[in-house]
């Protein structure tokens, strides 16, 4: 059952990205191009998603288990440090280079775009490199 609901969640998440136009790097880059012909659509995606998300997290906060009786895994990290800011600044550079962040890249790979596959392979290599360095 948890596998089925996780699968459906992924499916719905991907559909949301596609409907919102966010699986399209050209549209993401148009949002990031504030000095050009700016497309503010991404802000509306965030407003729609956060509106629903706030209700869900407010509800989840008062529970220790999920509807399936699984433990509620809420993030515990609170530190605002060099890792958080530096990592996020770096992520934004990669986002601006390709117009892809992780979710849309996976959706675009599913749609058959080889370049999305290359992006994901490189992303996994980058993640693995950090894990390797951090373990020492």
């Amino acid at each position, binding site marked *: 059952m948890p596998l089925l609901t996780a699968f459906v969640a992924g*499916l719905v998440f991907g559909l949301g990205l596609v409907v919102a136009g*966010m699986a399209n790097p050209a549209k993401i880059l148009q949002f990031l191009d504030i000095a050009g012909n700016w497309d503010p*659509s991404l802000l509306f995606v965030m407003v729609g*998603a956060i509106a629903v*998300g706030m209700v869900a997290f407010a509800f*989840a906060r008062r529970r220790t288990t999920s509807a399936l009786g699984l433990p509620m895994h809420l993030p515990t990290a609170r530190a605002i440090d060099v890792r958080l800011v530096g990592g996020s600044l770096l992520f934004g550079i990669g986002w601006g280079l390709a117009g892809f962040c992780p979710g849309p890249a996976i959706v675009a790979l599913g749609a058959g775009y080889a370049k999305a596959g290359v992006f994901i392979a490189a992303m996994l290599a980058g*993640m693995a490199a950090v894990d390797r360095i951090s373990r020492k």
Partner: protein
Amino acid sequence: MSIEWTAFTPWAATLGGVVLGAAVALLLLVNGRVAGISGIVGGLLKPLPGDIGWRLAFVAGLLLSPLLYTVFAGAPPIAIDASYPVMTLAGVVVGVGVRYGGGCTSGHGVCGISRLSPRSLVATVSFIATGFATVYALRHLGGN
């Protein structure tokens, strides 16, 4: 700045956002998990026993979503202009960045802000700032 009204799709964007939020709510309230894509994928790199299945199932759903969309509405519009070398570089930079930063657009930008996490707000402002700066540098600085 001038707003590109022909490309601006507020209704589709808001609807897509609500659908995205519904997926976040489903994974959270039924599976007890936060829908941060980089975290879900990253957790597969050094998997813990019993913690692999739901991650793979979620990623499988993401991969199949454009096919489901195509059945009802035709192929999703996706245009990738960047070259293979740029995609490779961007992928590495994104991978390193989200792993150090502890999240991406979904984990920090949607879920974190939904939880009113100051940490996620700082992360989101940071990556949007360098996203703006990078596209500005690529499109508006230099000879063209």
